[in-house]
């Protein structure tokens, strides 16, 4: 019997560049214990465990099997799920589907990455090379997508380089208030504008770090959610969109930066957000949504997402920046957590967007709490042009 669902527990570890002192099992265990504590549940109350990361990065291909003792999945149902950078959101939407089915009492979802163990670059090359995309490269990665977005935005006069630096400083300010963020150093506009170039106009400080960390959420159907928590974050709607192998071109979109539809990844992001708007009668998101968490693999992306979320008109990203509208005390805060630009343990990142809006809705944001959050949205994007969007509310 299908049911409405809510997030009743959220857990995150700290996020750092390296954790040689623990293994993947302990990392996952940390987030699971934190989520169980938050929900005031024990592992016995969980009946399904869904886990995800980018396996190639840690060389652990049956991560759901290897993590059993850390995830608490022993003798429970569940499996692993993966969708590149958006893995955390796909794990989450899978948990939502499982909980909504009414078949389970409480579903635990885990996203993590322990990149200090791995081979990120070698792994990424294996994704972007094939029989046709076989020349050049040696560094193709999310940088390609970001460069495409950046060049496109500069071309359309959506934003200036200086404004991107201003947004980067905002992201750092937000991260400083988030004990789970990785990069928590205050930045200046000059530092950002002078940081080394990766692929013009994208600079090192614009791009996310590689982090080690884990995130976990506990999702329950309505019949159990209200028993577990007096303060559930109701998950109203969710959608995932495959944009990869952009059918028009029939190519792996990450191999080329722009298409006749615009920069890659952008189309599926907009699709995901607008599907949620349409299904839920949201016509003026800037007014109707209280806070957004978006997957900003770089600062440029955050601003592009403002436009794709229809928070401003096309090419109007700079207006939101000038008005400081998306700042913590603005009329439409975006990424109170500091975003992916501040913390990126890939398997966890997309889940942290969802976890953060749940935290905001439940009023657990501490120093980074946005006041009066009634409706919040998380929208993620990643390779290869995959997006997910989730809408949550304080009350049904």
């Amino acid at each position, binding site marked *: 019997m299908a049911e409405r669902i809510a997030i009743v527990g959220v857990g995150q570890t700290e996020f750092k560049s390296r954790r040689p002192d623990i293994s*993947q099992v302990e990392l996952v265990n940390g987030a699971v214990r934190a989520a169980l504590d938050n929900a005031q549940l024990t592992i016995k109350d969980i009946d399904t465990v869904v886990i995800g990361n980018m396996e190639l990065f840690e060389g652990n291909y049956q991560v759901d099997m290897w993590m059993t*003792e850390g995830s608490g999945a022993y003798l429970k149902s569940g499996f692993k799920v993966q969708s590149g950078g958006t893995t955390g959101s796909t794990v989450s939407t899978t948990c939502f589907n499982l909980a909504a089915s009414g078949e389970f009492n409480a579903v635990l979802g885990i996203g993590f990455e322990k990149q200090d163990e791995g081979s990120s670059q*070698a792994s990424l090359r294996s994704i972007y090379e094939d*029989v046709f995309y076989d020349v050049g490269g040696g560094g193709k990665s999310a940088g390609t997508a970001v460069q495409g977005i950046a060049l496109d935005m500069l071309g359309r006069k959506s934003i200036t380089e200086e404004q991107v630096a201003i947004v980067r400083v905002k992201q750092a300010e937000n991260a400083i208030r988030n004990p789970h963020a990785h990069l928590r150093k205050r930045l200046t506009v000059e530092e950002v504008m002078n940081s080394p170039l990766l692929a013009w106009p994208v600079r090192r400080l614009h791009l996310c770090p590689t982090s080690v960390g884990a995130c976990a959420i506990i999702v329950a159907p309505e019949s159990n959610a209200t028993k577990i928590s007096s303060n559930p974050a109701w998950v109203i709607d969710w959608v995932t969109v495959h944009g990869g192998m952009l059918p028009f071109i029939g190519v792996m979109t990450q191999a080329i930066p722009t298409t006749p539809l615009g920069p890659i990844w952008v189309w599926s992001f907009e699709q995901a957000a607008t599907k949620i708007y349409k299904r839920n009668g949201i016509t003026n998101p800037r007014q109707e949504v209280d806070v957004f968490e978006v997957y900003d693999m770089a600062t440029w992306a955050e601003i592009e997402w403002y436009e794709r979320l229809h928070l401003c008109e096309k090419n109007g990203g700079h207006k939101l920046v000038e008005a400081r509208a998306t700042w913590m005390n603005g009329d439409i805060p975006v990424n109170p957590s500091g975003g992916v630009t501040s913390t990126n343990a890939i398997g966890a990142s997309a889940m942290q967007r969802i976890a953060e809006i749940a935290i905001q809705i439940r009023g657990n944001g501490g120093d980074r709490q946005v006041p009066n959050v009634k409706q919040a949205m998380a929208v993620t994007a990643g390779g290869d042009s995959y997006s997910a969007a989730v809408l949550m509310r304080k009350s049904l």
Partner: protein
Amino acid sequence: MSAELQKVEPVVHSRTRLWKYRHHAGPIRSKFLVELRDNKRFMGTKCPVCNRVYLPARPTCFVCFSQLDEWVEVSDKGTLMTYTVVYQPEPAHPAPVPFIYGIIKLDGADTSLAHMVSEVDPQDLRIGMRLQAVFKEERQGSILDIKYFKPLF
């Protein structure tokens, strides 16, 4: 398909990919390995709820989810639970073929350890036979600090 396409020989590309990983052991497994390296000693962790001793040491009891930090020394002697003789060479194997893999339950442990068995003819292996750990002279803090298990007479 057209006659022309039928004549086209399938094109196949070969590509070797190389990944380099470094897996961190974590505090519990590190201690287990350090004890092998420095003291030639088998240390397991004990679950206070289930009363099970895990060897090799584990950080969590996968049955009841308790965090484990109670250490128990187990014997370097144990029982052969089962075995297999490996004839097919693979790059991952720790020894040239043929060699014997055994599942060995050390006295005092509730779980078994997988390792090699040697100084015995495969024909003479018996499930339930008693074995003794043999350590290498030079040890690194690896499961291979144990050279193999040999029959205990």
